[in-house]
């Protein structure tokens, strides 16, 4: 009797462990960048290509960095949430357009000149924002995805919350749902802006 109790108990513990494991999201990889300074970059601004933006320019402000691209299907899903957010909340939302042309997969990059890629990327990004609404205070263009690598981007869309000191305080991978915004991002923004 006692022995069966132990065997059953052990089995139940194993089932519980596996159930928890299966419930976890394998895409939810903890970012080592949380708590670290936002990696530096200097990228051209979509609306004014002759200007650049770097994270230092945002020093002293709490801001969001949202990684997007016109070819990214999940970005479409979160876009209305971002548009709504930008109308209601006075927190700068900066867009990081990630590999607009070469990430698409529909182009033969071996045959495309850098100038051509650049022109096409700006044109496509602008068109997409015209169609779907532009929630971004600014969008910067990461044509080759180098800055994306510095930020550990592996699945667009991704969103970073960066505090006044320039430290990354949160990273969200995947589309932002209204729940994530209300339960995770808004409380953090309120706390950081205190």
């Amino acid at each position, binding site marked *: 009797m006692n022995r069966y109790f132990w065997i059953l108990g052990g089995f139940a513990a194993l089932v519980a462990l596996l159930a928890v494991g299966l419930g976890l999201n*394998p895409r939810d*990889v*903890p*970012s*080592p*960048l949380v708590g670290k300074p936002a990696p530096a970059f200097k990228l051209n601004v979509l609306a004014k290509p002759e200007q650049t933006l770097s994270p230092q320019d945002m020093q002293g402000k709490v801001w969001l960095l949202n990684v997007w691209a016109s070819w990214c299907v999940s970005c479409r899903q979160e876009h209305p949430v971002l548009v709504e957010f930008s109308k209601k909340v006075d927190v700068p939302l900066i867009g990081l357009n990630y*590999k607009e042309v070469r*990430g698409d*997969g529909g182009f033969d990059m*071996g045959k495309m000149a850098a100038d051509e890629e650049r022109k096409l990327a700006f044109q496509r990004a602008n068109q997409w924002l015209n169609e779907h609404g532009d929630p971004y205070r600014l969008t910067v263009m990461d044509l080759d*995805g180098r800055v*994306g*690598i*510095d*930020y*550990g981007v*592996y*699945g667009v869309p991704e969103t970073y919350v960066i505090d006044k000191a320039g430290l990354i305080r949160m990273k969200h991978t995947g589309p932002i749902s209204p729940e994530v915004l209300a339960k995770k991002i808004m409380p953090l923004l309120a706390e950081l802006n205190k």
Partner: protein
Amino acid sequence: MKRCLALVFALFLTSTAIAVDSATEAAMAADPVAEKRLQKLSEELRCLVCQNQTIADSNAELAQDLRREVRTMIKDGKTDKEIVDFMVVRYGDFVLYRPPVKGITLLLWGGPVALMLLGLFILVRYLRRRASRINAEEQPLSADEASRADALLKEINPK
């Protein structure tokens, strides 16, 4: 059937596309020593898009980008450790195919050994108990027990 053929054809197309792609990458690599290092390093690094593949196996965009980064770093004369650290700083320990031994991975590394030890312990205990039980059963009867047994036997089976 038609559908099936179409699928086979599509698979064939993608496989050739992959072959062409790795061919261009191979062409980019002129230096065999550097290429060997790239190969070795790539096998240690996880592709975060297709999580159970290394960046050597994967043809995802990100894996290609990361291979390009590794190649650039090799060209710049970075050591293997510097290159691996570069990845870990950005993507975390998860990017390593062989997770490092530290507090949070103790269960991962020690778990199987602990389970085996537990199993061995239970097995040894069981065998010992079983042996002592058998021993106990096989002990010869004492003189007192023997005479009682004789008496009982006679009672049942009087000749």
